[in-house]
């Protein structure tokens, strides 16, 4: 079975300790993935945004294993 591919950016990558990973989990929706990230990496679920195939996704959007996932968060610096 294919694994799910996730990319992390900015502070999120700092917190997960990696810029990408392959997960052997399955998630029905974006919300499920967000819950997983919150509990695994202690991320602030309100502050992160999930993109599926380079498009920002809403919480109820379904996830497929072949989707390219990215986890984004606002940057503060300037």
């Amino acid at each position, binding site marked *: 079975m294919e694994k799910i591919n996730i990319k992390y*950016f*900015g502070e999120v990558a700092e917190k997960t300790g990696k*810029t990408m990973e392959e997960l052997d989990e399955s998630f029905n929706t974006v919300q499920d993935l967000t819950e997983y990230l919150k509990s695994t990496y202690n991320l602030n679920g309100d502050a992160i945004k999930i993109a599926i195939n380079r*498009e920002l996704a809403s919480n109820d959007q379904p996830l497929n294993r072949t989707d390219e996932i990215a986890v984004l968060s606002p*940057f*503060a*610096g*300037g």
Partner: protein
Amino acid sequence: MKNEERYTRQTTLKEVGQAGQTKLEQAKVLVIGAGGLGCALLPYLVTAGVGTIGIVDGDLVTISNLHRQVLFSNQDVEKQKATIASQKLRKLNPEIQIETYPFYLNGNNALDLIKKYDLVVDATDRISARYLINDACVLADKPFVHSSIYKFQLQLSVFNYKDGPTYRCLYPQPDENAKSCAEVGVMGTTVALAGSLQANEVIKMILEIGKVRSGELLIFDLLSNEQSTFSFKKNSSLKITQETFQKEHIISKVSYAYAEMNDHLLIDVRETSELPILKANHLLQMPMSVLESSLELIPMQRRISLFCQSGERSLKAYKTLKSHQFKDVYCLEENAPQLEKILSE
């Protein structure tokens, strides 16, 4: 007396031409922040001949700014960033108008300032400022170019352009814990690139050429050289009105002397380990970390004045109390270090 020759290299481009140069001359751009991003993008807007440029920044130059804020030098330390930047930029191009606003953008001045310009550049380094700029731009119907930085990565997008998505469509809620350059560090080259990308979007919008990065977020990682683009749509359920603006961005501030005279309950929202330790009449310690779970300990009928170490957390606490129906809430103009002086006198 205008010197046409100044712009010949850019007017030679068919995308610019004399007509484009006239558009640049007539454009009014407000740059909020004269730090890393501002220092990178301002010289190019100025030298391209953007006719009117406003610079807003209440900060002073520090020695630790100099490695990336290239408009400043050693003798400028402790001087106003907006003022010094304007002086240097006028030498780059004396033919344009530069307006200097040496104070911070806030809920009380944002709308009036933004209304005077055609487009806005967010060159700030605070999350709260981005929401203020966003909401004011939505109300004033002006587009704004955003960039922000985390270590070697930059984000870039244009918001509220031709009724396009806004910053809130991308990130609906402020994440007040996101770390700034001061906390995590930054290279001058990263802000330089981010700033010139912003200036490039500004120029395209003025000239009405190319593709404007609206509805699209660029994340550029300068270590891996990887560029990723994410698209997003306008969220029409998000409504920004005068009323929501007022609630979120306009805070009531009072001086310690006023609060004391009017018997306000002072609330210190710093964590208990923070110095200086302050002792005063009517002083309650209620660290930000427990505030929301301890609201019942705050008498609702009292007038309340909040403070912390820098004003950032007291602003957050102010919003928390307001959202829980506390009516008479203020932020102190003074923060803990100033209060220590006042209280010891």
